[in-house]
């Protein structure tokens, strides 16, 4: 038992390597925030495209649905490997796109952003869709009968209500996204897991990994409580006295 504690919970060791692990975690945070924001936007675009009415726009709906199916079906890890291996090999692309080094971040960072945005955009699109579909049909009818076009109705009436409903599930997806950023370690990005396992292979002590886990908790626990609060606040709008989710 003592061996186990020394191997994984050596506090002195964690203090010694704190800066290193924190640097790695900072990369994790940047990756999460950038991919998260992009995925939220991309998901909303996908969900809107999926809803476009009319026979003429059937191809758009079809491809959007196909996109969502494919990228919810392919594991993120595979996608990361394919993107990181494939894009640099596309000879016809200019160097700045093949090996992006924008804003001082290396290409594997941006490949990670791309893979995560593509995948989580698909997940979030489905969440947005459930929000859109839960807005009562009467809203759209009323808006159209006031003379608004489909686009105007979506923008001013439907989407504001829809997005409000799904903030909590979207935030849940965001929490999942921050944890999935660790997958980008396979293309040698120095995020917290790679830093921790590097320290482990040099020193034969695994406490840096535990430290990484603790840093993650410091990030995700407050987000999880925020989700709870948002859910209970949303519910209290519609239920009067009925059982609600307990916010801690």
């Amino acid at each position, binding site marked *: 038992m003592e061996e186990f504690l020394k191997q994984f919970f050596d506090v002195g060791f964690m203090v010694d390597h704190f800066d290193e692990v924190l640097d790695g975690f900072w990369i994790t945070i940047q990756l999460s925030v950038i991919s998260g924001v992009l995925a939220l936007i991309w998901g909303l675009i996908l969900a809107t495209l999926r809803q476009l009415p009319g026979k003429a726009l059937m191809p758009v709906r079809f491809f959007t649905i196909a996109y969502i199916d494919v990228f919810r079906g392919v594991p993120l890890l595979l996608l990361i490997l394919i993107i990181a*291996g494939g894009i640099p*090999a596309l000879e016809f692309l200019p160097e700045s796109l093949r090996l992006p080094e924008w804003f001082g971040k290396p*290409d*594997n960072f941006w490949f990670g952003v791309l893979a995560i945005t593509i995948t989580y955009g698909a997940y979030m699109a489905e969440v947005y869709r459930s929000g859109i579909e839960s807005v009562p049909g009467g809203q759209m009818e009323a808006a159209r009968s006031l003379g608004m076009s489909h686009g105007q109705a979506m923008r001013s009436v439907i989407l504001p209500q829809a997005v409000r409903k799904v903030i909590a599930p979207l935030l849940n997806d965001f929490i999942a996204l921050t944890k999935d950023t660790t997958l980008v*370690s396979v293309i*040698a990005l120095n995020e917290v897991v790679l830093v921790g396992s590097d320290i*482990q292979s*040099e020193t*034969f002590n695994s406490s840096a990994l535990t430290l990484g886990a603790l840093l993650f908790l410091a990030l995700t626990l407050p987000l999880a409580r925020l989700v709870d609060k948002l859910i209970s606040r949303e519910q209290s709008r519609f239920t009067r006295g009925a059982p609600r989710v307990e916010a801690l």
Partner: protein
Amino acid sequence: MRTTRLTALLAVLLLAIGSFVVAGCGSSDDDTTAGGGGGGGGSEPLTVGSDIPYPPFEQGKPGNYTGFDVELLEAVGKSIGREVEFEDTSFDTIFLDLARGNFDVAASAATITDEREKTVDFTNPYYISEQAILVEEGGEIDSVEKLNGATVAVQQGTTGQEFVEEEGEAGELRKYPQGPDAVNALKNGTVEAVVIDIPVAENAENAGQGLEISAAIPTEEEYGFAVAQGDTELLEELNEGLKEVIDDGTYAQLYEKLFKHEPPKEIETATHEAS
């Protein structure tokens, strides 16, 4: 309604059980065909951890591994009367795993270093090596100095990584989980050079992928098989077996087959004291 729910539940259970059965039937033993020699005296096979693939030292599919480490250890095993079973493991935790008893021996082109000696014990050296700088054909990085400021790839946890961290001043050091990943990164242009064991680099050079060794880095490394610290019995057995294999010419045969030249004389007398 009750019957459909019941059937749904049954279907899920069957699917779960079915997948277990398939997994059980599908997995073949990681038995290497260790010379078939009658499984000697009924002693247990030696489990060996190795980061596969790392050609030309280990590669192939489960049950069918080949490579210098694999074939040499099989020969050693035959001479001490133990069968040898290789299993794939990741290199950056291999010494920790060995110390914890996940397997009996680690055979993974592992360099004997003082750091590692704190956690495991090494046999006498079975290979003398150095690092190499691998670049795309016509690449400019042909010396350690030229590594400065460049994007360099290594395999995580290797002496190649250690070398670049301590001696080089690479602009960016990329640590990949497996050796071939680093070579692939070089092939598609994501990095400018790879620092890796010379035999692996030679293997990549000869694979006709447009890569070449631009420089050798004489780090005078020796590879050893590793056992858990304090497992002196197994260590002595392995050393004896290794000496026999060297003395009776099997070692030289294997070496020439894989590396296309004669083994260095130092191997015959190289020893290593377990600390």
